[in-house]
């Protein structure tokens, strides 16, 4: 008590305290003074990210997208099951010229291959399309609805808002991939045998280890989508029309995929963000071949850096007139 009184006294002899004294009593005397800063916790800044996640996942559109994504593995599983019910093999009458790591033929041996088959089928178009919708709409949709100006005067801060948007898009990449993987795993386990797994290099591993590899693959697929998420975010900062941004992102994806199949354009292929996507199949070898995976991750990082910076440069200087 006496110490506090001495400290509060204006004639306190203590040297270092003196400097702060004039400010302290003023603030204490007028707690509601307009200039008195409200105590702010740095953690509160995360509210925007949580809110962003809520906004993304409470939207019917997102639920519908995830529903469609979950449906595809079910369709694939059921189709394979029907085709092979009578003991035949997948694509028996098609000449057997398998293109890429489709994994379809292994599904009947072990249901877990339905996970890989589904991811391999959906990574080229379905998954990135869903990401394109979410990322493309992220900023442009807010501008279109006019809510962007209210977020910015709140003030969300342009960099902070952009980071929250991108973080939410990344979460969606992961959730979308996990939804596909879990749906495929469930359907695979229900329709096909499960037990030890024969990898594509011929080695047999336990179901548990195969599950681990499936988790790694799901992670790689989610990371493969980070590039197009950044691209979509950048396109989203260019326009005030959510539909235009979504269409542009998905259109660009399709264009890139087409260019990637034209052999005459092989010079640009290594720079296309889709080029190394299917490298995740190498995780199913023993030993694992990390070459393509590393190239893929490096390329995605490059796209994130380039288009993330572009989105930031554009969004922080843009006039918000919507």
């Amino acid at each position, binding site marked *: 008590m006496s110490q506090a009184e001495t400290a509060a006294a204006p004639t306190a002899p203590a040297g270092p305290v003196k400097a702060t004294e004039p400010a302290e009593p003023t603030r204490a005397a007028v707690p509601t003074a307009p200039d008195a800063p409200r105590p*702010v916790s740095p953690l*509160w800044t995360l509210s925007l990210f949580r809110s962003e996640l*809520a906004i993304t996942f409470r939207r019917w559109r997102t639920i519908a997208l995830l529903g469609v994504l979950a449906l595809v593995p079910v369709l694939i599983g059921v189709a394979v099951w029907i085709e092979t019910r009578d003991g035949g093999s997948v694509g028996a009458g098609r000449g057997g010229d398998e293109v890429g790591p489709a994994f379809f033929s292994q599904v009947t041996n072990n249901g877990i291959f339905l996970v890989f088959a589904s991811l391999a089928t959906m990574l080229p178009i379905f998954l990135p399309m869903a990401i394109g919708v979410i990322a493309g709409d992220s900023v442009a949709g807010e501008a279109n609805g006019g*809510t962007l*100006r*209210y977020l*910015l005067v709140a*003030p969300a801060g342009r960099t902070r808002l952009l980071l929250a948007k991108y973080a939410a898009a990344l979460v969606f990449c992961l959730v979308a991939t996990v939804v596909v993987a879990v749906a495929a795993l469930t359907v695979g386990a229900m329709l096909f045998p499960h037990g030890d797994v024969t990898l594509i290099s011929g080695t047999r591993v336990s179901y548990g280890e195969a599950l681990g590899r499936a988790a790694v693959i799901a992670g790689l697929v989610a990371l493969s989508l980070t590039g197009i998420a950044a691209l979509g975010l950048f396109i989203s900062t260019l326009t005030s029309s959510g539909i235009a941004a979504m269409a542009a992102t998905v259109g660009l994806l399709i264009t890139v995929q087409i260019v990637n199949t034209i052999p005459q354009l092989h010079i640009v292929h290594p720079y296309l963000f889709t080029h190394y996507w299917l490298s995740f199949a190498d995780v199913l070898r023993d030993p694992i071949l990390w070459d393509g995976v590393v190239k893929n991750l490096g390329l995605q990082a490059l796209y994130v850096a380039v288009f993330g910076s572009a989105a930031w440069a554009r969004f922080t*200087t843009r006039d918000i007139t919507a």
Partner: protein
Amino acid sequence: MDQPSAQDTAASPAAAIETRGLTKRYRGGQLAVSSLDLRVPRGSVFGFLGPNGSGKTTTIRMLMGLIEASSGGARVLGEPMPRAARTVLPKVGALIEGPALYGFLSGRDNLARFDAADPTADPRSRARRIDAALDRVGLTAAAGKKARAYSLGMKQRLGLASALLQPRELLILDEPTNGLDPQGMREIRTLVRELAEDGTTVFLSSHLLDEIEQVCTHAAVMAQGRLITQGTVAELVAASRGRLAVTTPDPAEAVRILKEHGVTDLVVQDERITGELPSVEAGPPEEPPQGAEGPLDLAELNAALVHGGVRVRSFGTERASLEDVFVSLTGEGFDVAG
């Protein structure tokens, strides 16, 4: 460097908004706002008037850091915008060009969304502050409804509620009564008055002149991107003095007498005569107003008319409304500027 900053701190307590040469030229070359010097005193209810397209919203957007000024600068609550947006904007509540809501969220969740965007908003008090804001705009009953089911008036109220989520020092309200029924308009006006009594500076843009006149202490008039005038509402109305109006069955005689007494711009319409009283400013400024040569005493004028045999049915001045001021200043009606 020291001197300007000292000046700034001296100026900051007085003005809630201060712009210097604020100019916005859009990329197409269109000049939306031209060297605007606006000064909104703290504690005022400031009416911002102008026809559609006169640059009001562009000005507000520049003040809020949404668009960048081509030249000039603005200080809001004493700090430069948009540089100090992070520290200034939490103290400012804004309703800009009508409300914008997430249709798939309830009213309450909309407020939670905007509150979460403010890094200085305490999440622990969020629910309580949202309830208080909803209550303040009379939207508690509809708080759980999806915003897409809201009427325009309800959306407007929700927009206002989001401006009131925190105690604010400055409220910027762009057409706040748009879409409201007369009862709602009155409620909002009462709300604005209450907020002003609590010491909040209110910057109110409106095209409803009587609304400005009823609520505001100060006003500024914009036309074609330029500031035409600013000052207290009383000053503005006083500057455009009322016209004399006389009703009499003897107009010819009345006109003659009124002319003799220095009434100008006489307009005769059947039995009704209106005219401009001789202006106070015309006389030498040092002369005391109550002097013999001072402003015309209306009682004397009436006596002169009656003395001259004019039968007077009614006699008086028509008080100028803000609308008269507006029309006389902009030289146009309240139409969209081409």
